[in-house]
């Protein structure tokens, strides 16, 4: 699904990532761990083409996005679902509209939007809050809206960048369970986290990054830092 070859990312005289290589096959659930400022989010930004690598190659689903053109970026992002610690919901749109926007921006027909969005919101347990605005939701609910939005166009890859960073333990468990469920239906999940308990509880592949380098990559790993 994702192949990263010798990626280096430099910002003027600071190196965020150095010679990173890894491969994530389709259907895998991978945790990318490391302390704050080690380059995890930079790697996510490279994968979603928010930033460009200084050197190296990134291939997603057979598409080499290293030198992706600006007009191709929306097409890439429609194939990747991304959720963030701060949810990144559109504040003036309702739950339904936030999720629908992901489809509407791709030109999906009105009938499909009106059919799909309630279904996805039912999966994340928000079928009764379609007309609520983000400010009317709890943190866990906001993250579930973000997950629904990321899932609505059935991406092959879901990237979750610190999705539980702003949540309490109950909501954290709910979100992780939801990500596992999503993985079970065949979606590749890349979970970026520095939550030791979450990562250790998963017992899945763990890639550890420190100072911009991969220092360990274990098939059923634990948070080692």
């Amino acid at each position, binding site marked *: 699904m994702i192949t990263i070859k010798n990626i280096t990312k430099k910002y003027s005289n600071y190196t965020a990532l150095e010679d990173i290589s890894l491969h994530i096959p389709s259907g895998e659930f991978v945790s990318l761990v490391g302390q704050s400022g080690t380059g995890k989010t930079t790697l996510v930004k490279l994968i979603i083409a928010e930033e460009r690598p200084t050197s190296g190659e990134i291939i997603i689903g057979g598409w080499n996005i290293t030198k992706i053109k600006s007009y191709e970026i*929306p097409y890439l*992002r429609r194939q990747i679902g991304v959720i963030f610690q701060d949810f*990144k*919901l559109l504040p*003036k749109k309702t739950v339904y509209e936030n999720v629908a*926007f992901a489809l509407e*921006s791709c*030109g999906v027909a009105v009938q499909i939007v009106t059919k799909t969005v309630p279904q996805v919101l039912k999966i994340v347990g928000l079928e009764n809050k379609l007309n609520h605005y983000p400010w009317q939701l709890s943190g866990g609910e906001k993250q579930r809206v973000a997950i629904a939005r990321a899932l609505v*166009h059935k991406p092959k890859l879901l990237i979750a960048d610190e999705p539980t960073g702003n949540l309490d333990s109950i909501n954290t468990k709910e979100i992780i369970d939801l990500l596992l469920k999503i993985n079970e239906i065949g979606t590749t999940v890349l979970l970026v986290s520095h939550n030791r308990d979450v990562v250790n509880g998963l017992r899945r592949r763990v890639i550890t990054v420190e100072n911009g380098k991969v220092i360990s990559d274990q098939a059923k790993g634990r948070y080692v830092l």
Partner: protein
Amino acid sequence: MFFLDLFRSFKFALQSLWRNFWLTVVTVIIVTLAMASVSFLLIFNLVANNVVDTVKAKSEIYIDLTEGAKQAQVEFLVAELNKLEDIREVIYISPAQTLERFKGEHANDEVIMASLDSLSSNPFTGSLKISVKDIAKFDELLTELSRDEYGDILEINNSEFFEAKDLLNVISDYSKKVEQFGFGVSLFFIIISIIVVFNTIQMGIYSHREEIGIMKLVGASNWFVRSPFIIESIMYSVFSVLVMVLIFYPLAIYIQPHVDNFLGEYSLNLIDSVSNNFLWVFGLEIGIAILITVISSMFATRRYLDD
């Protein structure tokens, strides 16, 4: 696909206008004020130009005929002058008409009236009343009439002739200065208005900068993100001009008597003047407003789309 995206852009624009109600209100007020300041100056220019045009239209010169001028010569000259493109009208005024006009002008001057009564015959010769389409052409025309070949017919060497010529030149100069001043002040206000509107739209879009980033993250193309903002800008312009129209007519009714009082016979009917050119005036304003707001929103969104 195009129409679906367009429909969605309209939907998002209307949602944004409604859900950011106070931002919409403030933006419309600022755009309206900017348009109003320009409109006020345009109306001021309209009134000033009307005064100048009225003065120009009423600017006419009387050239006395010599005593020896024969009727045939005069008629020929009048016919020839009326053929000229720059001449509005040349009318022959008979000695009797000249006397009547003179009496009318000096009706309150007892000395002059007594002097006239003491004369046994009409002291006036006939004269030509000349008016031109463009006051600036008067000078050229009078120079032409000053030629020696007309010396037998026209009294061109008396002081009245030169005083009239000087007066027309002064009117012509003042009218040019009024036009230049009006243009300069209007230009200044237009530039100020453009800057104000530009910054207002920029500030409005600045408040949406995070949303723009989110829209891009979920896969929206630049045009899909940008188009609702452009449609919003067009709506701001339309609302502003509608507000302008609603404000203009009551305001014009209120100030019309004051304008009439101030300008007297040179006054202008504001409502008629604007209503007769309604599409031109408000069409132009709406066009300019849309141009400024759309360009502003294009610039503002590009800044955040490039981030």
